[in-house]
C-alpha cells in the first residue's frame, strides 16, 4: 500500500491532531490559531489538488481512490479552507472554545473526505457518522443563544433518526443481497418484483445521506439549524456535508437505472424538494432561513444529476456541487461580514448595502444570481449540465419541473439584490456605516475573488470539468 495515496486524508488528520494538541496545551490559543490554521487549510487544498490524479483500491476493496473521490476531496478541503477564513474571527464564539470549534470542524471535514472514498456500506456508514457526530457540537457553540441550543437538539435528533433508519435499511440490504461492497451490489437486481426487501433497504439506507443533503422529507432541520446556529457555522453546515453526501450518492448512481422504483422515488422526491424549498423560501425574512430553504431546493437539483445515473450525470453533479460551494460561500461571506455582532441578518438589514460596501453588494448579487442559475455564472452552467444529463433518462418531467423552478426561485434571490441595491430606508447616509466597518479591504477582496470564480467558471467551465475527468 502506498501511503502517498492517502495524502489528503493524512494531512487533514494532521491538522486535526494539531488542533487537538493546541486545545489541550493552551486555553487562550485563539491568537495563535489565526496565525497558522488558514495557511494550513490552504496547504490542504494544494495537497488535494496535487493528488487529483491518484488511483487505487485500498483496505481490501473498501476504499476507492478515483477521479470522483479525489475531486470531491478537493472540493471538501476548499470548502473547509473557506469556512476557516470565514469563521476565524467570528464574534459569537468564546475565545477559549475556538480551538475546540475548529477541531470539530476539521474532524467533520476529515470524515467527509473519507466518505468520498468509501465504497462499502459499513465504511460509508462509519464515515457518515464521523462527519455527522463532529458537527453536532458545532451548532450550540453560539454564545448565550437559546435558539442555538434548540437548533442543536433538532439537528442531533433528526440526524440520529436518519442514521438509525439508514442502519436499519443496511440490514435489509445485507439480508437480501448478501453483500456490502458496492462493486458487487451494482450487478445485482434492484427491481421491486425481484427483491422488495433490497429496494426497501436501499431507500432506507439512502435516507441517512438524504438527511445530510437536507433533501425532502429529511429537510425539517435545515431552516431551523441555519437560523439557530452561528452565521459561520451555518455557512459550513450549508455547504460541506452536502458535498460529501453527493459524492456517496454518485457511487450509488449506477444503481439508478431508468424505470427502477428507487430511481422514480428519488426523482419524485427531488421534484418535491426543489418545489417545496423554493415556495417556502418566498416568504422568508431572515436571510439565513431563506438560504436554508434554498438549500432544500438545491438538494433537489443535485439529485437530478444523480438520478441521471450516467457518467455525464456524475460529472454534472460534481460540477454543480463545486459551484454550489462557491455560490453559497459567496452569499454567506456577505452575510457574515454584514451581520452586526454575529446576529442573524434580516432582509431589511441589507438595505443600503450598496452604499456601505459596493464590493460586498456585488458579491451578494453574483452569488444570488448564481443560485438562481442565471448566466453567466457557474450556477447556470451547473444547472445546464445537470438538466442535459438527465434528459432522456426516463424522467423528462423532472427536467421540466427543475427548469420551471428557476422562475419561482428568481423572486427570493432577487429580493437579496433588491434590498441591497434598490430599496432605500429613507435614512441619510451615515458616516458610521462606512465601508471600513463592514469589512476590511482584505475581507471584501476574498468575496470578490469568490464572485470572480463564479463568473469565470460560468463562462469557462473546462478547468473544473477537466479536474473531474
Amino acid at each position, binding site marked *: 500500500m502506498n501511503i502517498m495515496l492517502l495524502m489528503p486524508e493524512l494531512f487533514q488528520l494532521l491538522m486535526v491532531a494539531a488542533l487537538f494538541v493546541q486545545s489541550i496545551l493552551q486555553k487562550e490559543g485563539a491568537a495563535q490559531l489565526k496565525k497558522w490554521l488558514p495557511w494550513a487549510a490552504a496547504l490542504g487544498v494544494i495537497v488535494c489538488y496535487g493528488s487529483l490524479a491518484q488511483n487505487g483500491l485500498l483496505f481490501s476493496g473498501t476504499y476507492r481512490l478515483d477521479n470522483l473521490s479525489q475531486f470531491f476531496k478537493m472540493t471538501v478541503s476548499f470548502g473547509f479552507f473557506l469556512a476557516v477564513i470565514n469563521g476565524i474571527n467570528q464574534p459569537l464564539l468564546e475565545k477559549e472554545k475556538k480551538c475546540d470549534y475548529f477541531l470539530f470542524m476539521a474532524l467533520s471535514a476529515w470524515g467527509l473526505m473519507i466518505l468520498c472514498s468509501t465504497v462499502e456500506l459499513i465504511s460509508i456508514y462509519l464515515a457518515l457518522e464521523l462527519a455527522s457526530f463532529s458537527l453536532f457540537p458545532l451548532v450550540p457553540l453560539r454564545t448565550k443563544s437559546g435558539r442555538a441550543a434548540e437548533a442543536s437538539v433538532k439537528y442531533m435528533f433528526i440526524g440520529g433518526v436518519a442514521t438509525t433508519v439508514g442502519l436499519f435499511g443496511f440490514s435489509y440490504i445485507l439480508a437480501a443481497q448478501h453483500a456490502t461492497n458496492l462493486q458487487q451490489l451494482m450487478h445485482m437486481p434492484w427491481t421491486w418484483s425481484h427483491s422488495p426487501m433490497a429496494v426497501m433497504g436501499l431507500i432506507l439506507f439512502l435516507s441517512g445521506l438524504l438527511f445530510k443533503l437536507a433533501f425532502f422529507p429529511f429537510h425539517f432541520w435545515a431552516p431551523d439549524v441555519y437560523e439557530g446556529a452561528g452565521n459561520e457555522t451555518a455557512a459550513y453546515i450549508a455547504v460541506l456535508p452536502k458535498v460529501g453526501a453527493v459524492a456517496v450518492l454518485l457511487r450509488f448512481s449506477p444503481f439508478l437505472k431508468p424505470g427502477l422504483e428507487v430511481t422514480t422515488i428519488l426523482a419524485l422526491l427531488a421534484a418535491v424538494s426543489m418545489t417545496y424549498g423554493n415556495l417556502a423560501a418566498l416568504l422568508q425574512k431572515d436571510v439565513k432561513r431563506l438560504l436554508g430553504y434554498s438549500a432544500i431546493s438545491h438538494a433537489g437539483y443535485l439529485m437530478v444529476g444523480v438520478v441521471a445515473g450516467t457518467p*455525464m450525470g456524475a*460529472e454534472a453533479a460534481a460540477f454543480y456541487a463545486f459551484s454550489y460551494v462557491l455560490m453559497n460561500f459567496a452569499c454567506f461571506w456577505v452575510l457574515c461580514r454584514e451581520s452586526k455582532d454575529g446576529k442573524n441578518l434580516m432582509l431589511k438589514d441589507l438595505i443600503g448595502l450598496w452604499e456601505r460596501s459596493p464590493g460586498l453588494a456585488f458579491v451578494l*448579487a453574483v452569488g444570488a*444570481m448564481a443560485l438562481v442559475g*442565471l*448566466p*453567466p455564472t457557474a450556477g*447556470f452552467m451547473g*444547472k*445546464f*449540465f445537470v*438538466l*442535459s444529463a438527465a*434528459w*432522456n433518462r426516463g424522467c423528462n418531467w423532472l*427536467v*421540466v419541473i427543475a*427548469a*420551471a*423552478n*428557476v*422562475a419561482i426561485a*428568481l*423572486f427570493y434571490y*432577487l429580493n437579496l439584490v*433588491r434590498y441591497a*441595491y*434598490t*430599496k432605500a430606508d429613507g435614512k441619510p447616509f451615515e458616516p458610521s456605516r462606512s465601508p471600513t466597518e463592514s469589512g476590511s479591504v482584505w475581507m471584501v477582496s476574498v468575496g470578490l475573488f469568490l464572485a470572480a470564480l463564479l463568473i469565470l467558471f460560468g463562462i469557462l*467551465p*473546462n478547468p473544473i*470539468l477537466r479536474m473531474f*475527468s
Partner: protein
Amino acid sequence: MIEPHFPILTCLILLPLLGCVPFWFMKTSRAIRWWAFVLSLAEMMPGLYLLRFEMGTADFQFVESVPWVTDWGLQYLLGVDGISLFMVALTLLIFPFCVICSWTSIKGRVKEFHVSLFILVSALIGVFSALDLVLFYLFWEAVLIPTYLLIALWGGNGRDQAALKFILYTLAGSALLLVAIIAFRVEGGSYAIPTLMSRSFSFRFQQWMFVIMALAFAVKVPLFPFHSWMPGAYGEAPVAGSIILSAVMAKMGAYGFLRLGLPLTPDAAQYFAPLLIAMSICSILYGGLLAFAQSDLKKIIAYSSLGHMGFVVLGIFLFNLNGVQGALIQMFNHGITTGSLFAVAGFLYSRSGSHNLSRTLGLGKFVPVFMGFWGFFVFAGFAFPGTNNFVGEFLILAGAFERNLWIGALAVPGALLAAAYMLRPTQKMAWGEPATATGWRDMIPREWVSLVPMALLVLYLGLAPTLFLKVINPSLKHMIGALESRGAMTLMVDKNILRTSNNRVPFDGNAGGGGHP
C-alpha cells in the same frame, strides 16, 4: 464561407465589456459620460467592418467557431446572415443614442448606469450573433439583470414593481427554453443552429418545442396576451431604458421566431400559425385601442409599440416573402422611430417634469423645432408614405392580403388606429390650451445631434429601401423556401395533418415523401 478573417463579432461583444474598466478610475460624472459616448461611437468603428457583408448569399458570414466545452457539445459559434445583420446594426446604432439621451436625465450612480448599459449592449449583440443554442440562451438571459437594474435603479416612481414584474415575467417565459435547447441537442445531435436547420424532427416533437419557444419569444416581443409587463416597464424605465427595451429588446422575441421558430420547427410553425396570427392581430387592435385611451406620453408610445410589434409577428407568420420582408424591415424601423419618440418624450420630461399629456400643451408656439421633430417621428410612427415604417407595414399588409383576405382586412384598422392615437396627442401638444410650454428652451445642440441622424435614417429607409431588401432577401428566400419544401414533406408523411386538411392528398402521393422508393 469560412475563411480566416478578423473576429469582428467577438470584438463587438467584448469592446463594451472592456470599456467598463476605465470607469473604475473616473471620478466626475462628466468624464464618465464623455467616455461612454466616445466608446459607444468607437463601437461603431469595428461595426463598419460588417459592410464587407457579402450580398446575394444566404450563408452565415463572419463565422467564428471555437471549441468551448467539447464534452458537452458546446461551441463558441458566432455568425450573422441577412436576418441578424440588421439587428446587430440596430443595436450599434441605438447604443450612442442611449448614451446621449441619458446625458442629463441620469443624475445619481452615473457610473453604474453606464456599466449596466454597456453590459446590456454586449449581451444584445451576443443574442443576435450567437449560432449555438446554449450561447444564445446565455446571452438571452444575461440581458435580464442589467435591464432589471436599469429600470429598478433609475426608473420613475413605480420602478420597483415595474422592474420586478418585468424580470419575473420574462424569466418565467424563458425558463423552459433551456429544456427545449437540451431536447434539440438530444434529438438533433448538436447545439449548432446551422446544423439543426438541416435536420427534420417529428411533428409531435416540433409541436412541443415550438410551444415552449413561442412562449419565451411572445413574452419578450411582447404579444397579446403576454404584454402586461410591458406598459409598466416601458413607462417607468429611464429614457435610455425605454429606448433600448422597445428598440432592441422587443426585437429579440421576433428575432427568435425568425432564427429558431421557423427554421427549426417549420411544421409546428405552420400548424400554430393561425394562433400566432390571431394573437398578433389582437395585439395590433388592442394595443391601438389602449394607446388611444392613454394620457401618459410614454404609455402611448408603449402601447403603440405593442401594435407595431403585432405587425411584425403577423408578417413573420404569413409565410410569404412579402410578409417576412416587411416584418424584418419593420423590426429595424420600429427601433428607429419608437426609440426617437421615447427620446423626444424624455427631452420633454426634462422640461416639463411630467409625462402627462396635460403638462405638455401648446408646444407648437413656444418650441416649434421640438414640435417639428415630434411630428415627424409621429408621422413615421403611423407609417406615413415616404417614411420608413410605411415600407414595412405596406409589405406586411400586402403579404397579409396575399395569404388571406380576412387577415388583411383585420389588420388594416390597426394602421388606421395608429394614425388616430398618434395624431390625438400630437394635436394637443401642438395647439392645446392653455399652453404649458411657456419659457421652455427649444432644442439644444445635444438634442439636435441625437435626433438628426435618426430623422435622416427615417427618410432614407422610407425612400430608398432597396439596399436593405438586397441584403435580407437571400436569407429570407432561403428560409421561406426551406419552410415550404419541408412543410410539404411532413404533410405527406404525417397522417394527423392529412386528416385535418381539407384537400385530400393520396397517401402514396408522388411528392417525394421520405422512404418512398
